């Protein structure tokens, strides 16, 4: 079982890496990181802050775009190209296929983020004339961003298990935006009462919450990130994405593959 999942995962990774479109996106992000350096020169005292803020935000947003982009293709493209058929008639369970795809994509995103992070640290080095101890803190922010990718990927997978590529992409991106403003949604829920309150609160839990995963602002001001937050965020990402992947597998088990 794990052997097959690992097989699918590494094949997914290989396929994604050889797809040149990825490189364009990474390049784009690196350009953006570079431009952040120029941006920061608007006001010197917040140069470092702006570089960090803008770069991490770019990595975050474009990483999500990449996650959605490949994620949607995972199932849809395979069906279209009928590669899926030849896989599923082998002793591979449908759910193993989904799980394998998921891990393959997470692997891809992790590697992507690694390269983007390298570019970012290069920019930071240039701006701060060297690296400081507090820069390590930023790694945590990047880790949290990767956790966001994991969640979005699982959602993209969920949608592409039953929906067309376009709609899956739209839903997944919409959830990313909503997830980023999850705190404001919760604020709004606190203002309401009765049935509306429960409904909105329920929806709030159903939707992904990226509020606590977003520590970009904090690390920009060299504030420490607590261990408790690290643990809780990791746990949240693991549980939530597991739920989404289970959902994807359940749907996929039943799907007629026309």
């Amino acid at each position: 079982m794990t052997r097959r999942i690992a097989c699918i995962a590494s094949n997914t990774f290989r396929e994604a890496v050889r797809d040149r479109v990825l490189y364009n996106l990474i390049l784009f992000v690196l350009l953006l990181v570079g431009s952040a350096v120029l941006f920061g020169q608007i006001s010197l005292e917040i140069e470092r802050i702006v570089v960090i803020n803008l770069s991490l935000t770019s990595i975050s947003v474009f990483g999500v775009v990449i996650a959605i982009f490949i994620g949607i293709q995972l199932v849809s493209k395979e069906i279209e190209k009928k590669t899926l058929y030849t896989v599923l008639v082998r002793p591979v369970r449908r759910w193993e296929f989904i799980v394998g795809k998921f891990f393959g994509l997470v692997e891809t995103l992790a590697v992507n983020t690694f390269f983007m992070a390298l570019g970012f640290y290069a920019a930071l080095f240039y701006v701060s004339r060297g690296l400081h101890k507090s820069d390590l803190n930023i790694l945590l922010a990047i880790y949290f961003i990767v956790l966001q990718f994991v969640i979005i990927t699982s959602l993209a997978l969920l949608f592409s298990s039953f929906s067309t590529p376009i709609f899956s992409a739209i839903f997944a991106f919409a959830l990313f935006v909503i997830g980023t403003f999850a705190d404001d949604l919760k604020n709004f829920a606190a203002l309401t009462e009765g049935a509306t309150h429960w409904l909105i609160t329920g929806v709030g839990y159903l939707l992904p919450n990226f509020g606590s995963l977003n520590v970009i602002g904090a690390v920009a001001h060299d504030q420490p990130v607590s261990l408790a937050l690290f643990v809780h965020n990791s746990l949240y990402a693991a549980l939530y994405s597991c739920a989404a992947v289970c959902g994807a597998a359940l749907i996929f088990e039943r799907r007629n593959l026309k």
Partner: protein
Amino acid sequence: MKSTQYTTAVLSFLLIACFAGSAVVEHKMEQLRPAATLEEVLYIPSSKVVKRMSVGFEALVADIYWTRAVQYFGAKHIENANQYKLLYPLLDMATDLDPHLIPAYEFGSVFLTQPPPRGAGEPLKAVALLQKGIRQNPDSWRLYQGLGFIYYMELKDYPAAGEAFAQGSKIPGAHPFLKVMAARTLQTGGDYLTAQMLWQAIYESFSDGLIRDNALKHLRALQVDREVLQLEALARAYAARTGHLPAGFNELVAVHVLRSVPRDPLGYPYELLPDGHVMVKFYRELPFITQGLPPGQQPSDLDLSTQGK
């Protein structure tokens, strides 16, 4: 097929378990997270940068900051923290992005001004904010009203207050009350009736729940202050006549000095202390009062009132 049913069962169970788990963790995290720092809430502290990034959605982004300001203040208000560091930056950012966001100016004028724990205690910042608002919205007479209010109530700068009210009254469509206030502040300055009129105006002209509630509390406090002083004077007069202070208000009722035991705005009877001071029954329910407090109690205490929001 058995194995498919088994798979479905396991997957369904995992789905529900993991989702429930994630909700629990999320809930726990909300309690764990420190109150949003300046950086988190502002995200990017320079309004120039934010403006550039908003690219056409300034109004929306302004609204988001504005909503956060209200929520932030609401949350802090309940927590009774003594610092509202974020309030001014949030309002400043929101109004930079959308200079015509009048509610933000108005909100700021009230809650930036008031001393802690019920406000930020930064009247000068409130003035700066309002002046920015007036520059951007010269036709908004309510901003002049707000400005005059701050000068009068907090900064005790009666000429400046009068000037603000006068300017505002010149705007077509301004509430006639502004003219009256201009005259009064220039003449009197510092008296109870003016204060009452000002708070009454705020209560009537604003629709925001927090602001109205705040104004109501001030009106009650003014009433209490006045009534307590009047009752204490009454007790002293009685003592001068009879040679001893009344034992309680019942005595004054018995001798027809008072028609009935006097009650505070909340409906509870005032208490007459042996030393001639008058006290309210539940001082915690009447914030802002400066008279009628228990002996030794300072006016600026925690607002633990449960009335209103």
